């Protein structure tokens, strides 16, 4: 695998080496839930390695294992030739939520990054000020985080991580809490520092769910598949910095990753359908109005019922994290079909897009009960019971045998929204029970 064309020399010894790492969290009921299985990952000298995956694929957990914040349940992490026992010198982290202490000023926050090095007061101040200048925060030293915009706050997060001159920088979706413009500026600034050789950092591990961001910044991308998280693909990006999103090679890579992702998604859906009649299929977090809005957009003359996901994402200004769940939802309901990085409305999907309100509901209900076995299952249980109601907990427990607690909850939340729209059943959140619409 080749690294990029930047000036960093290629050295065979990795900065950090994760070997056969597994992670499982204990559950109240039954066997522990596997989040990561047999991950092999090494950040090499001079590269930015991207970890790309959907939410819940365990990528943040993986990053925390590399940071020494979590211990893997199996496997080992080798850093500087020895097993990693906890947070250590030379590894620094940038957080998605910035993780700034609100009661400390910018300067004090940055100085915290040097606390473990036990430097003399003066030297500490000098280095903190230098990091603040480097990241473009000069003038804000005495400001409190609440006085700063999101972009400025994350700059403090970067300064705090970089001030200790870490060998390895870990980034947990550092741009995802920022607006599009701010994120782009911060990304560019970081890449400038990186390629300009102004950082002591020798390698970066970047977690993201944004495909374009990964292609823009990384030299190599590992695509993580979920349930349990494992490496599904490895993609090298041999493009020189600065990269251009409109460049043909760039777009080809983005399309390629979309294809990989959609292939994994459709594969996973197929596998879930085989299990328990599909009743334990996880549903994405997608509201009715967004799904129907997306359907209408696809049906519009702009797309004419089909399109490449990468193009759709650009056109509708959606991130991968937003677009994929929508596409998966339509695919699950067989209103559209996902294939090789593209999506195409089915005949039913096109009819639904053109239908009036009543017809829409009827069609949606038909598809929900036919293609989401869990919906049919709930409906059946309700019909069989004399009281025509059933506690939510019962279905949640069934789901939890195969999904994480969060996924199970999410799946039911989605199903409740869809079921209410389709008028397939009613749900009382206070009693946490499902009921047939005829009851009460």
């Amino acid at each position: 695998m080749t690294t990029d064309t930047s000036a960093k020399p290629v050295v065979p010894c990795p900065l950090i080496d994760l070997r056969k790492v597994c992670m499982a969290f204990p559950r109240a009921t039954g066997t522990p839930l596997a989040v990561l299985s047999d991950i092999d990952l090494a950040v090499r000298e001079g590269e930015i390695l991207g970890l790309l995956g959907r939410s819940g694929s365990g990528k943040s957990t993986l990053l925390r294992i590399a940071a020494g914040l979590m211990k893997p349940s199996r496997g080992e992490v080798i850093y500087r030739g020895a097993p990693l026992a906890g947070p250590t010198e030379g590894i620094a982290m940038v957080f998605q939520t910035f993780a700034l202490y609100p009661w400390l000023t910018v300067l004090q926050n940055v100085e915290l990054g040097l606390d473990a090095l036990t430097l003399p007061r003066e030297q500490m101040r000098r280095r903190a000020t230098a990091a603040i200048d480097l990241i473009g925060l000069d003038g804000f030293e005495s400001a409190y985080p609440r006085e700063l915009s999101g972009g400025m706050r994350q700059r403090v997060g970067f300064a705090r991580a970089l001030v200790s001159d870490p060998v390895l920088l870990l980034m947990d979706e550092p741009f995802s809490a920022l607006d599009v413009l701010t994120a782009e500026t911060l990304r560019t600034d970081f890449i400038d520092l990186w390629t300009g050789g102004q950082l002591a950092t020798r390698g970066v591990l970047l977690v993201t769910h944004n495909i374009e961001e990964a292609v823009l910044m990384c030299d190599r991308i590992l695509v993580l598949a979920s349930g349990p998280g494992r490496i599904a693909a490895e993609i090298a990006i041999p493009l020189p910095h600065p990269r251009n999103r409109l460049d043909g090679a760039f777009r080809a890579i983005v399309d390629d990753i979309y294809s990989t992702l959609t292939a994994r998604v459709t594969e996973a859906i197929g596998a879930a359908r085989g299990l328990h009649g599909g009743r334990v299929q996880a549903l994405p977090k997608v509201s009715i109005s967004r799904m129907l809005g997306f359907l209408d957009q696809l049906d519009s003359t702009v797309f004419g019922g089909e399109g490449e996901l990468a193009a759709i994402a650009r056109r509708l200004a959606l991130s991968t994290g937003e677009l994929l769940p929508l596409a998966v939802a339509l695919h699950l309901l067989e209103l559209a079909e996902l294939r090789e990085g593209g999506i195409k409305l089915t005949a039913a999907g096109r009819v639904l897009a053109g239908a009036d309100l009543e017809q829409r509901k009827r069609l949606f209900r038909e598809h929900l009960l036919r293609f989401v076995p869990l919906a049919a299952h709930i409906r059946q249980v309700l019909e069989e019971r004399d009281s025509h109601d059933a506690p939510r907990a019962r279905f949640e427990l069934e789901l939890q045998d195969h999904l994480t607690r969060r996924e199970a909850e999410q799946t039911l939340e989605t199903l409740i929204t869809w079921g209410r729209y389709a008028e397939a059943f009613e749900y009382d959140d206070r009693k946490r029970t499902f009921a047939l619409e005829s009851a009460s």
Partner: protein
Amino acid sequence: MSPVPSHRAGVLPLTASGTTREVSREVAAFVLVLGSLIAVGIAARGMLAPIGSMPLAISLSPAALPGYTLRTIARMLAALCASLLFTLTYATWAAKSRRAERVLIPVLDVLQSVPVLGYLSFTAAFFVALAPRRALGAELAAIFAIFTSQAWNMAFSFYQALKTIPADLDEASRSVRQSAWQRFWRLEVPFAMPGLVWNTMMSMSGGWFFVVAAEAISVGSMQIALPGVGSYVAAAIAAHDLTAVGYAIAAMTVAILLYDRLLFRPIVAWADKFRVEQTAASESPRSRVLEILERSRLIGLIGEPLKRTLARVACARVTFPSAARGVTSWLAPPEWLAGALWYVLIAAGGGFAVWELVLHGSATFSRDDLTAVGVNGAITLLRVIVLTVLASLIWVPIGVAVGLRPRWTAFAQPLAQFLAAFPANLLFPFAVFFILRFHLKPAIWLSGLMILGTQWYILFNVIAGASAYPTDLKEAAASLRLRPGRWWREAMLPGIFPYYVTGAITAAGGAWNASIVSEAVSWGATKVSGGGLGAYIAERTLAGDFPRIALGVATMSLTVTSLNVLLWQPLYRFAERRTRLG
């Protein structure tokens, strides 16, 4: 694609177990409701009984204890209703009228810092005079004591909520032309509900302390012993009976747990639906009792007409006829004149009070009285400070250690809340017994009793703070490998500071109140006094020396109010400002 799954693996057989469960649910609901009604009825009958038919002496037999406990519980309930009524009227008035607000809120502030047990002697004398032949007078005095320990706090919470109703909700209500009455029940009360319920629960937990203290009081020649857990303990103290004290502790434990399970937990779970946040909470409070009541058809059958009537009352368009409104507005003086009149009235009232105080005060009190109160006040102040600091040094590290471990928190938090609610005065006899037995110095060893019951507020607030400490900040601290000194100073302590201040305010305030029953105690005929303002008030009360009780109480109120204004309020504002991120 496979259509609807036809196999039924995993579908539970529902019929048999389902119906049994439903029947048992009905029975449980019925028993709960009927049982509560009967219990209230029994207790209320006793309260209205003439003095003559009351048992003359408190029986120390454990068999009498359930009855006494029931009476104590009923007093709490009565006080709760009175506090609620007060809250809905007083706080509403303060929130709706600017002019009233300027007087009512400062008054509430002062009332909050007056030690409840201090003026028990006055209210007892007053209420007994109202109904001299019946137990009712003494009952009212006890209930009033509990009321004063709850009402101010609840009224404040309700007032705050009314003042912070989101403008959009208020505008929506006005745009559909709801009358003031409709808006009150449809918007204002529901909006204030979660905060009100929480505050009521907290006040209630303080109330147990006062009900125990208020059941057995003697002011001069007047002796009151209302049947209840408090007088049971008083009788046990008089009889040197430690075993009986143990029974009382057990009974009180059961009472507090029952209150929590049967009353507050269902209400908290129910009030959760009034939260304004649009996002669904990850963990909403649950209550088995509420679930049983809500799912029961029988309760639904009885409750439905009641609910409908209440809804109709809330919806009624209670408005003044426009003619009447026209007359009042014509009669009403212009705004500036009314404002001026109002201030003149307040100034006159305040002036009269000062005049009375100076006139009567200089005649009644000598220099020695003032010195005695001053010295005793200083002693108690020193105790409160030292004890609050000591309790903080112990409970802050423990609270942080517990709060950072979810598993410990789940276990420790309810325990700390229970301990805070448990009336510490039931435990005093044990401490006094040991002090006498080992000849310990009362001035030092009695001090500990002041904070015995209220130190838990520090613990559970710190636990709450530490468990709410943001995960990313915890991870950042670990990733940056902060050294212990800096971790405490710059990462952890500032994060829990607002919680700590809340806990410390409650603990210190409670300690002042407790000083009245803890600085001077007795065991049988032996009296032990540690000195201090609390002991001063307690001794004057026993002697029925009303002017000096008033002097002591006033001094204590003044000290507590000054501490609030000069120390706690600035500290709280500082804490809040510093930890805010947005």
